[in-house]
């Protein structure tokens, strides 16, 4: 799933038009999810027409599978996690510091005024003053950025394989940030991954293709995040759709081992005490 942020900065009234225009453009290419952050939504203050009061999560279902929902305890990331298995795009409105390409809506903007800011913030895609500023370049730019993937989205993808009829097994591996190797270790705060752009993606794609050639292996998905990955977060996924469990397990193990050996990715570890490149230890 490709994620686009939209932030308001002096564009009151224009933001909704920009969101509508973006969603309209994206919807021509695939299913779109929208996450709106609104700090005024708080327990008891957000007016919702649901007849039920008191449930922690409420789904109101209608004809043809239409629905609305309200609930408590959901972060922006939780919302993206729910969208990702079934949406090709997510538009996130009103969230600061999103680690994905972001449009800033400013009715007064001029290209010159924001040139310096764009250099300083590598997630800033463009500053727009009107919905007419949205063109195919925006869509192309969000497709080029690292997608949002989870174990669930990759599992959903292999289930869509044309050979899924032959599959009796899905095996997966999830690599995550380990705070400590030992009880006495200084806790890891985050890892930062650097990728050889282009070459890393080619190697991952050819590794997937090689693993898919094995007898009984029907589909393989590999995904590795880059940039900062915090303590406890997931880093890498290997998902294998296979006829039977034996080849599924073997292929998952070989897949993660070869990814770690062959794909040009570099890991810097930052603990509460120290910072180092992992290959130097």
């Amino acid at each position, binding site marked *: 799933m490709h994620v686009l942020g939209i932030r308001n900065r002096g564009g009151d009234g224009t933001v909704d038009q920009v969101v509508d225009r973006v969603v309209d453009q994206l919807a021509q290419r695939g299913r779109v999810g929208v996450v709106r952050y609104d700090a005024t939504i708080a327990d008891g203050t957000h007016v919702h027409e649901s007849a039920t009061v008191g449930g922690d999560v409420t789904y109101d279902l209608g004809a043809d599978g239409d629905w609305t929902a309200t609930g408590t305890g959901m972060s922006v990331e939780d919302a993206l996690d729910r969208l990702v298995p079934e949406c090709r795009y997510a538009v996130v409105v009103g969230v600061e510091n999103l680690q994905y390409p972001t449009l800033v809506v400013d009715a007064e903007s001029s290209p010159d005024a924001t040139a310096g800011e764009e250099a300083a913030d590598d997630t800033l895609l463009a500053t727009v003053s009107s919905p007419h500023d949205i063109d195919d370049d925006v869509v192309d730019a969000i497709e080029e950025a690292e997608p949002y993937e989870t174990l669930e989205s990759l599992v959903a993808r292999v289930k869509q394989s044309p050979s899924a009829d032959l599959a009796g097994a899905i095996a997966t591996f999830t*690599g995550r940030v380990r705070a400590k190797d030992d009880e006495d270790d200084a806790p890891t705060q985050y890892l930062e*991954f*650097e990728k*050889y752009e*282009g*070459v890393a993606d*080619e190697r991952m794609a050819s590794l997937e293709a090689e693993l898919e050639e094995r007898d009984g292996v029907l589909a393989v998905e590999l995904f*590795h995040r880059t940039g900062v990955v915090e303590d406890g977060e997931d*880093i*890498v996924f290997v998902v294998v759709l296979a006829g039977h469990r034996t080849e599924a397990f073997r292929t998952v193990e070989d897949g*993660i081992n070869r*990814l*770690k*050996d*062959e*794909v*040009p*990715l*570099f*890991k*810097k570890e930052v603990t509460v005490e120290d910072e180092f*490149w*992992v*290959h*130097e230890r």
Partner: protein
Amino acid sequence: MSTEWKLFADLAEHAGDRHVTVEASAGDTVGDALEQLLDGRPELAERVLEDGELRSQVNVLRNGTNVLVEEDGLETELGDGDELALFPPVSGG
């Protein structure tokens, strides 16, 4: 024509830059391009060389292919517009 080096992880830190353009071009060798890269970058040279030879853990790629494994090592001849990469052992996952 010139040739671009891409550097990764601590090698980029030792070089002070992630991208370095050198004069070596088609007909020259990867070794020529490496010599130009290391010239004036003693920290990087110390990191990647041992007794004048490339340390065994350092990888050199030309257009995504490892020249030390699949080509003629530092004798590999450059083509037009080649992209070279220098990096330590990979450490994904």
